[in-house]
């Protein structure tokens, strides 16, 4: 009996968390007049709302922009974070502790302080309305560095010393010996970075004004807030569904990694 109640509660919880997405999907294929009465599936589903979204906004272009920007940021963060994490774990240099504290401190620095000057900086560098404006400020991640540093600490130093004796350079040690042994850290950092930049909205809204350079969340946000959806719910929901789809698909394949990564980002803080 107690077991039954447990399952009942857990299932109600699951419905509460999943059903709205299901509703969004079925509402997005329903005709406008049915949405307000919709409970499960529409009577006459059609992809009309989706084709309207595609007509009204360059959503595929935005998808490509988002993919491009997020991928470059992720690759950059992986390279730089592992490099700096490596230096912090295995190398001796002046100001090493200071650097570590600076990294930790800047992670606690609220973005509200730096938002406006960063925008001005991007303006001065001529990076408004360019991919660079979206990418460059995000190439370094304090969290990424910390995750790599923690992970490298668990790898026995003998491995590195052996490689050094063989005459390997530090960069080669990092990328050919440590990387293959640090796959979990790489996955964690990659997922966190990719998701973070994929879902970012405030910064693109500030930096990008040309429609053909907008990222997907930005475009969908402006579509929903602005007048172009002409207050049609179905069209808005279709745009939202298209925005959700890529990350949900990725999640359904790599669910475990997603959950682990997100949880570990919490732990490290």
């Amino acid at each position: 009996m107690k077991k039954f109640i447990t399952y009942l509660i857990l299932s109600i919880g699951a419905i509460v968390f999943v059903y709205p997405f299901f509703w969004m999907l079925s509402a997005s294929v329903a005709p406008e007049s049915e949405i307000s009465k919709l409970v499960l599936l529409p009577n006459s589903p059609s992809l009309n709302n989706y084709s309207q979204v595609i007509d009204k906004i360059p959503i595929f272009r935005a998808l490509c922009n988002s993919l491009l920007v997020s991928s470059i940021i992720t690759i950059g963060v992986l390279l730089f974070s592992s490099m700096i994490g490596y230096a912090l774990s295995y190398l001796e240099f002046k100001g090493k502790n200071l650097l570590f504290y600076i990294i930790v401190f800047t992670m606690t620095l609220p973005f509200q302080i730096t938002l406006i000057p960063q925008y001005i900086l991007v303006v001065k560098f001529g990076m408004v309305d360019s991919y660079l404006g979206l990418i460059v400020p995000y190439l370094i991640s304090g969290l990424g560095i910390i995750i790599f540093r923690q992970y490298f600490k668990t790898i026995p130093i003998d491995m590195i010393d052996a490689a050094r004796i063989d005459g390997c350079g530090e960069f080669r040690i990092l990328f050919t010996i440590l990387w293959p042994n640090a796959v979990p850290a790489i996955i964690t950092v990659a997922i966190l970075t990719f998701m973070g930049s994929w879902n970012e909205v405030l910064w693109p809204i500030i930096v990008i004004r040309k429609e053909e350079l907008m990222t997907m969340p930005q475009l969908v946000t402006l579509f929903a807030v602005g007048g172009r959806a002409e207050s049609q719910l179905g069209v808005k929901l279709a745009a939202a569904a298209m925005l959700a789809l890529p990350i949900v698909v990725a999640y359904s394949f790599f669910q475990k990694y997603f959950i682990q990564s997100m949880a570990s980002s919490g732990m490290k803080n």
Partner: protein
Amino acid sequence: MKKTKLTPYLMILPYVIFFITFISFPVIFSFILMFHKWNIIAPMQFIGLSNFYHLFHDSLFFKSLLNTLIFLIVHIPLQIIIALFFAVMLNQKIRFIGFFRAAYFLPVIVSGVVVTILWQQLYGFESGMLNRFLSAFGIAKVGWLEDSNLAMMSIAIMATWKNVGLYIILFLAGLQTVPNYLYEAADLEGATSWQKFRYITLPMINPTVFMVVILSTIGGFSLFIEPYVMTGGGPLNSTLSAVLYIYKQGFFFYHMGYASTLGFFFAGIILVVIVIQKKFVERDA
């Protein structure tokens, strides 16, 4: 042991450049901006402490702080209670645990924009799903986003729904570190479930609670996209969050100096709150 002296510096160089350009320069610049009036178009103009004078007379800014506070007061406890509840539920020998975990986690990974657009529809007054659900039980319709006393709470509920999955996972991880023998010993002494929870579980997972409080405080302080999309800050400015207000000052009216002042002031508040929380939560253990 060491090869070249240069390599380590080469390796940290990207961070140093990044730190100088994107962190220390902005912080210093922001600091200087506080004493200036600047609309980007015209040259900067030194105005001394005027921005601070204006800040302390800006009732809308204080309203936005209060709104953010209301959001946190609703959001954090709600988040902790629900997350803890489901984590305890999941921390038993049950089947399909992977499925439940995945389901609860789904809103976490989806963009806030999607969640906000979705909930805007659920909260609709005339035909929103929540109100239809309520009226099916004969309960009067609720102005989720129309009532200025409720709107911020509605946003807080939505934010909880979005984030709670992450905290369920964090609590679950915390719960699994509680050694079983403690419960067994308590069972021998005839403790009730509540007593076990209160005197064993809670103290043991205190670090997790602290972390959740801090994480959701930081998250809550940066509340922006939800009111931006859902309400634009209305009705009657009841959902105008501090970040939304700073955004409006900076990028709507181009008061860069003033927006900087607000940003600094607000950041100061955040730091103070987090330090206090740290003291408070850790002592409470």
